[in-house]
């Protein structure tokens, strides 16, 4: 059993609009976001952070990537009212 296998156990009303993005101009490629995101939504490619295309389906809205990014490259909002993560057993 690997705990990564549980990372998909998330209940969601998938938001129809984007609520996160990264400003490639600000990003230093430090990979802090890559390390903390517990559902593996960040990668660094050619020295810049890239957010997974399907992040709206998998993101936990925890804000850890946004919080840890020291260069302020990540824009994070909560998804629109009534959409996003539905924690059943929090």
């Amino acid at each position, binding site marked *: 059993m690997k705990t990564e296998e549980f990372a998909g*156990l998330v209940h969601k009303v998938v938001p129809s609009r984007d609520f996160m993005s990264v400003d490639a101009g600000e990003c230093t490629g430090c990979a802090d976001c890559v390390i903390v995101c*517990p559902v593996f939504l960040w990668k660094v490619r050619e020295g810049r952070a890239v957010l997974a295309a399907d992040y709206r389906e998998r993101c*936990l809205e*925890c804000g850890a990537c946004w919080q840890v990014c020291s260069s302020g490259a990540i824009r994070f909002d909560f998804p629109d009212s009534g959409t996003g993560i539905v924690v059943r057993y929090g």
Partner: protein
Amino acid sequence: MEKYDVIVVGGGPGGSVAAMTAAGLGLKTIVLERGTRPGEKNVSGTGLSPKCYRDFEFMKEMKLPHERVATMATLHLSDDEAVERMSFSFTPSERAAYPEAREFLTVNVYRSELDPRLFGLAADAGAETRTSTRIVGVVKAEGGRITGVRTDTGETITGDIIIGADGVISTVARTAGIRQKWDPSEVAMIINIDFGAARADIDEAIGGNALHYWYSSVFPVGYSFFSAEGFHVGLGNYVTWWKKSPHYYLNRMFEIEGVQRQIRQCKGVAREFQNHMVTFLTNPTTTYGDSVLLVGDAAGFACPFEAEGVYYAMYSGMLAGKVAAEALSSGDVSRGFLSRYERAWRDSPVGEEFVGGEAIDGFVRGIGFNPEAGRWVIPMLNDAAFGLLNVAESHTASARNLPRLLLPYVPELARELKEDLLPLSARMVERPRRSARPGLVRLMRKALPRILPPLARFAARRPRSPYGEVVGPLLAEHFLTPYAEERINTLEEVERG
């Protein structure tokens, strides 16, 4: 347009209690929650402390469908190989300060049950409640005065006082200009896996021993907390602490046979993966502004020791509701007037939690959240227990062996005592605001110079014994010099004289 006295943003425990209090005092109150149902965005380790039941009448009647009363807690200590080396448990003291504290340690609940209940109580008290309403920021009039909040559909809700109860990523705090995001060193993230299980299986395997802490030298302190029909297994640390994916550490925790056994015996089936941030502040300083009061995690009130935050959110919510009523009746919602909120929370159990702030922080960073420390703390505790209780030799021989077992740990222990534990206990026992110099420190300063020099002299006279080699120089380095400078400067002087 309808205008509210108080707009509460966030329908967690802090927001609902704030709204309940404000509405109960006759204020026209609305509480806004972004989820379709309160609780669906929130994650806790699940433990409600006895304080919640001591201080809030409505909690005494609250029975949640899946609550489990924890009457025992167990700390498990594991080594580098994720092998459990030692564990011990405790139960409530018969001499605890109040009845609930004598009965249980925590009541373990789900936020999907607690939060809607509290939200409902706010409605019963007369507050208007709205779900599926996300606030994108406060609204300012010309001149900068805050006049309300705006939703993500563009609707403006007007009110005199905004209570920001919107959790650790507080939109209210940021858009009101009270602070930007927290410093990363002030925030932890905690990952959790929730398991479902049959009530009878948990009753059989766990019963009331429903709070398990797992400390080791390979992952930050973790826990398994049990509610009636499920349990959380998780761990956390400061957001900037992780050197590898959090899963690396969680996997190391899951390697422990004791963790696996719990899952097996309860026949646990993983139901949900969760991650949430929580603040770890030494001293909250951004808790109000013009027309704005922040409560709970939005203010940084979670306890910096164990991340307990539901009670502090509820308590600060109650205080904010009261201060809002005072401000409105005196017609002054300025920062100046609202500073009495800070006085109120500092003078309450909320403020009390932060009296030892920096020292707690030192301890948490030094030992609690520091697996490196586990490399000596865990074998030390184990060797102490083994040394005292083993039957491998006669008890006389064991007693003689004890120093040999424990001496290697003395340097680290002395450092930890000096740097974290003694200041921590001194800060917690005393009320620094009331006495110029904390009494425990004063007592130590008086007593230690009397106790330590004879000890050091004794040690110095036995240079070839383990005491002379290890304890003597340590006493001199860590205690003699700072506390008895005028009498004895160094161990050499002791030896010469």
